[in-house]
């Protein structure tokens, strides 16, 4: 009798998790980093590994830091939006290519267009850990003092851009 109960027990445990899962929004992660200084790093650039980029270079400017990868499906959704945003010149976008190969990342940018002022390579995901990257894509809004003001989990949508990111960027730029 007992072994025949096993499927039911497994199922009920799963239901418990699903129930908790219902009350969670997979796109919304409270990031402990919001309001804190963006972790420092110095990483080689995608286009030229001899040059490095560091958030320090951006002090005094409001900028977007977008974590992406060529293997990431959702990045394909947001990519045209980022390209459009970069063309508008409202805010500079910097990218971090997460756990990816140089070749594939460059092909991706060639194909989809390059919205980034510069992209750095985080090949082993070290910097990603500092930033608490859970899934790609993620986008951070970083203010003039180098503090993370907002974190977008999942692709940047027109809606998020219009309602959250751009108003925030404008406010931060006037500070």
């Amino acid at each position, binding site marked *: 009798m007992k072994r025949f109960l096993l*499927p039911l027990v497994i199922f009920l445990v799963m*239901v418990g*998790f699903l*129930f908790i899962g*219902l009350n969670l929004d*997979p796109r919304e992660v409270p990031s402990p980093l919001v309001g804190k200084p963006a972790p420092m790093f110095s990483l080689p650039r995608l286009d030229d590994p001899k040059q490095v980029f560091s958030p320090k270079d951006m002090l005094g400017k409001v900028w977007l830091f977008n974590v992406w990868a060529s293997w990431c499906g*959702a990045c394909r959704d947001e990519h045209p939006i980022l390209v459009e945003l970069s063309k508008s010149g409202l805010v500079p976008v910097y990218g971090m290519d997460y756990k990816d190969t140089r070749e594939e990342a460059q092909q991706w940018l*060639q*194909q989809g267009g390059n919205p980034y002022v510069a992209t750095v390579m985080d090949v082993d995901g070290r910097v990603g850990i500092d930033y608490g990257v859970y899934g*790609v894509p993620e986008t951070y809004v970083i203010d003039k003092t180098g503090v993370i003001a907002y974190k977008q989990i999942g692709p940047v949508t027109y809606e998020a851009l219009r309602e959250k990111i751009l108003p925030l960027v404008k406010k931060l730029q006037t500070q």
Partner: protein
Amino acid sequence: MIPEIGHFSLILALLVALALGIFPIIGAARGNAVWMGLARPLARTQFLLIAVAFVCLAYAFATMDYSVTYVATNSNSKLPIQFRIAAVWGGHEGSLLLWAMILSVWTVAVSLFSKHLPDDMRARILGVMGLISVGFLLFMLMVSNPFERLIPAALDGRDLNPLLQDPGMIFHPPMLYMGYVGFSVAFAFAIAALLGGQLDAAWARWSRPWTTMAWVFLTLGIMAGSNWAYYELGWGGWWFWDAVENASFMPWLVGTALIHSLAVTEKRGSFKAWTVLLAICAFSLSLLGTFLVRSGVLTSVHAFATDPRRGLFILVFLVVVIGGSLALFAWRAPTVGRGGKFDVVSRESFLLANNVLLAVAAFSVLLGTLYPLFLDALGLGKISVGPPYFDTVFAPLMTPALFLMGIGPIARWKKSSLPEIAMRLRWAFGVSVATAMILPVLLGHWTPMIGLGLFLAFWIFASSAHLVYQRLRGSDQPIITRVKAIPRAWWGMVIAHLGIAVFTLGVTIVKGFESEIAVRMLPGEVAHLAGYDFTFKGVEEIQGPNYTASRGQLLVTKNGVERTILSSEKRLYTVQNMPMTEAGISPALIHDLYASLGEPLEDGAWSVRIYYKPMVEWIWAGCAMMALGGLLALSDRRYRMRKRLAKEGALKANEALA
């Protein structure tokens, strides 16, 4: 007015479904023939009512009635008519209606083709299907009404998601749902058998053709979906381990196990409890898939709008249906006999091993799909499990499963001998090992994965060839007579297994030998890939019905001889302002050439991506062969015979009465 008729019709359908779920089951328990007799007319009435609702919604789409919220959100006046109709299942509410519609189709089918079943069995089966239908109709009417009005009406609709504006959209969802929902029949048979305590070979014989039919649809549905992703997403992939793909793949794996397990239960009387559990699991996974897709607990390309009430409703429904049936299983299964005994080395054992491997594979897919959710619920953070997990887990599970596929059909029931099997398959083994070692070298390069894939594919080819040879030899009759003498079900098995081999071969070759380039091209420039020259003919602007597009063309030549023209489009769907890539594909048996147009660069140049995909079409050809094998098994004489016998039986009964 028409939408209200549809709405009203759904309400009536709910009442009929309730009656169908209550009276026949109670009637069967009490031996009340009149209540049991209600099952068939109620099943048919339910079908008619849901069909009316479905037609009403399709009519609202066809006539562009934007005073219906669902139509306004999923259609547009510029949307071509075939997509306006397919848009009926393009969103959440409509796909539920499609689900309910297909469930009622299966219910009617059971009511039509169940004359040979005992009355109480039929009443229980239709009753269980009625109860499932109650859940879906209630869900629609309470939180997902497709007929909800929008006042004031929208001037125009927000358009169907451009990703879905493709011929694939017309076939893929109905096929897939036919498969998903089709497992409800096997499920209902299992529950009816548990309720009535008639878990015997007859039960297995009755539910086999239904299970096979659902499995055929599911196979075709997944195939259509994979093929659609291949040409629509524009980056040459054919399977992404997306949560929603997994949701269709899990029932397929368990359904495949179920088909084999049913064969053992019918022929040998063994595995009864296991077969029932698989039947429950196959449909439970279909329901779970629905929950995952509709509730928004997982993010996915396929997911529709999130509404917490919907998620909660489906979860409660899951608990009632799956929890209830597993509880019934725990209560009734211990009383089921063990069935025929068998040796460690026997066809039963091999089938059981394959069954377990398939079930474990399904479970690991489930784990990978739900793992991010589990961690999140435990507060351990958010992660995504991607193809690396699934690829790592899947290969070690499928390797022994495919290897056993070569042995199972050769082994004898009850007791077989390993040395004898080894003797008989030694040539097949030698041929497949040799092919795995030599062929990749001839094609360019050898890696362990390519070697393994080819070995498994040729192992199945060779062992099937041996099986056929053995079955056909030793008779003086002409070959055609001998082929015809063997039951079609057996040929169905051989063809489905060969389909797996063809599929494996396609996957191995395309993964091992595909190549691609991404280049910047000016009109007139030439790119080279895999021995072909691709001349960029430039880009022209074209105007589609609801999009504008840049169409780039590539002239493909080999050694100066013109082969084909690839034309890829970069479309911008104007209503949602959404860009889409239409890949240019030249499909062929040996290889596909695949081009997709990237972004415009400076000076009239374009970025262009070209893929060389050897034998990629074999992947879908393999799926088609599996489905064909299933259909062949369904056309087996014994099913037709039974129908004839049933007819004769009915005639005799009539004569006796007269």
